[in-house]
């Protein structure tokens, strides 16, 4: 079927959108603070220019290069490395229906407690909890009785890497009919810095019966699977190689811990931000 990003027709039925494949995608390698990682990144579609960003092969940003003023609360800082967005189109000139983005960035706490290391599994876990609270902790509905996001869900410690790494999702509250989903993959680069890969899945609102009132259940009109499949394929292609310095930091961080303590937790249930 021909899926082009040109929109001439309107959607009238359930559609499985099509996006780029991973097979021919080039591999993108970045060496950040000496730690080398690479992922397969499909080529971006044309009409989303202005969103894409590629960094140099080697980066070691100084703390003043980090973007701090993200919100009023400057707890976490960020340095963007790679950004992409891929359109997922309907067949025969229905045009873009959904998209998957990818943002790879270095994040760090603006004021980290001295003596702690992100290579320590417990520090790493609490940093992730803190990061999720920073992103979604204040997003509540129904006078604070329901939280808009559940994170982390589908927690999965990743094996086969030289350092600890974890994969999880943040999903919108289905009770409030929010169809949001973000896939995360996080691993430590240095004692202070984490590498964050976010893959937000976004679907258009579908206008079938009215021009101004969208259909209430997007799941009945656009399939989410193709976007999730590509995001999984991208994350599966991840490779990490630690530098000597990072290895030393890691050894120092897990010194004196037993085998159980060196692993990430198997279960990490969604955080609760509602006060009740």
């Amino acid at each position, binding site marked *: 079927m021909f899926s082009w990003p040109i929109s001439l027709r309107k959607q009238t039925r359930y559609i499985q959108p099509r996006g780029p494949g991973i097979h021919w995608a080039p591999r993108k390698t970045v060496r950040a603070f000496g730690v080398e990682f690479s992922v397969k990144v499909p080529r971006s579609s044309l009409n989303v220019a202005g969103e894409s960003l590629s960094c140099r092969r080697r980066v070691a940003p100084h703390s003043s290069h980090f973007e701090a003023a*993200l919100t009023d609360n400057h707890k976490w800082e960020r340095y963007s490395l790679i950004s992409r967005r891929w359109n997922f189109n309907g067949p025969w000139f229905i045009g873009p229906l959904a998209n998957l983005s990818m943002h790879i960035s270095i994040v760090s706490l603006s004021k980290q407690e001295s003596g702690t290391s992100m290579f320590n599994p417990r520090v790493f876990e609490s940093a992730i909890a803190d990061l999720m609270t920073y992103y979604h902790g204040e997003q509540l509905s129904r*006078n604070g009785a329901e939280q808009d996001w559940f994170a982390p869900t589908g927690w999965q410690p990743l094996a086969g890497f030289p350092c600890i790494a974890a994969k999880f999702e943040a999903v919108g509250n289905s009770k*409030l009919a929010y169809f949001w989903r973000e896939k995360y993959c996080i691993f430590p680069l240095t004692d202070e810095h984490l590498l964050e890969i976010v893959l937000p899945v976004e679907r258009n609102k579908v206008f079938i019966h009215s021009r101004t009132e969208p259909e209430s259940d997007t799941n009945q009109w656009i399939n989410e699977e193709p976007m999730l499949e590509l995001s999984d394929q991208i994350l599966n292609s991840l490779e990490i190689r630690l530098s000597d310095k990072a290895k030393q930091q890691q050894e120092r961080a897990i010194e004196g811990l037993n085998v159980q303590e060196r692993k990430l937790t198997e279960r990490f249930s969604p955080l609760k931000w509602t006060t009740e």
Partner: protein
Amino acid sequence: MAIPPSRPEVIAGENAGTRVVAQTPQIAQACRELAKLARQGDYWAARAVKYISALTSRQMKTVFVREGAKTTDSQKVYVMLVPGISLEFSQRANSDFVIHRMALDSTYAELQKAGEKPALFRVQRRGKHFQTELANQVKPEKFRAVTVSDRYSRVSSAAPPSARAAKEPMGQSMIDRAGFDMHFTPGDEKLGGLKLAEANRPERILSIRESAFLLAKTMEESRDTTGVYWISEGGGSGVLTQAMKILKSRNVTFRGSEHHVFFSKYATDLVKAQNLAYDLNLRFERTAYSTGLLSSPLDPVRASINRRKRDSESYTRLQMAADLCKGPQTVVGGVALLSSVGLGGTAGFILGAGVAGFTALNALGRAVTPSTHDKLKGKL
């Protein structure tokens, strides 16, 4: 024995002022629910309770008369609309206000958050993308930028063009660092442009009425904040025009608040919008609009002459003359590029294209593919 008429339940003003009563016990129950919501901290419920209690001193600031509708005792029907609550009431001969109908919809805010209803969002850069968060009112900060977006099918796809529009008068650093507020309207088609009925009479488009009411409310409540910049993006000029029309019918004035307006790539009648802005005492900078692909090329000419008529003090003849040439800039640039091919052969082409072409290409590029233009500019 005759059954005594049921005593209507008094909601407000039992001891002093004009009484507000509920017509049926169900409505009284709904009012109690509303008060409960307000106590829990629901923004709009608190506003509604405030409006109802304001009725006791006969203040009706934000209500509308439903035209053509009459109660059984032939009184006017008033309507109050705030997100999530719709309320209809009338005034009896004995000066009591009586509430006929009241509907509570606590899911409105959720629909707004999901991008299914028009709403105000706070937009902030997060790395390479924008983070949006539902807001009830304009951030009370001096010189805040508020954009009025065109119709988009997603909030996240409305944010980048809105940011681009806001950068035109405000500058890049302001928007990237401080963020901005965005009034979002859901829909699958852009407003105005080649649809002449919409472009020429934006104040009559029914499908954006709800959005315009909300925007009017936001604008009215933000008057205490100094120097808010209202920036419409593309067809958002239609929503802004309609909102300003509503405000004018309510005799709202922005005198002394130093609020400015800017129409970025307007897609509806510019002259109408400009006149309404003058009526409301909103202000203009030296440049108050930019043209896009869907903007009428004649409007800058009409708007410049009109602006000189309305504001001959600060808008000089020279400025008007300069603006008159600006409108059909893309057209003129394109024609210059084409004519240089025909007239001067190769040498003429290189010279002509060099001079006229660069401006034309720049303007054309910005008009046709703004995101590609931004990307190239970002690399240079």
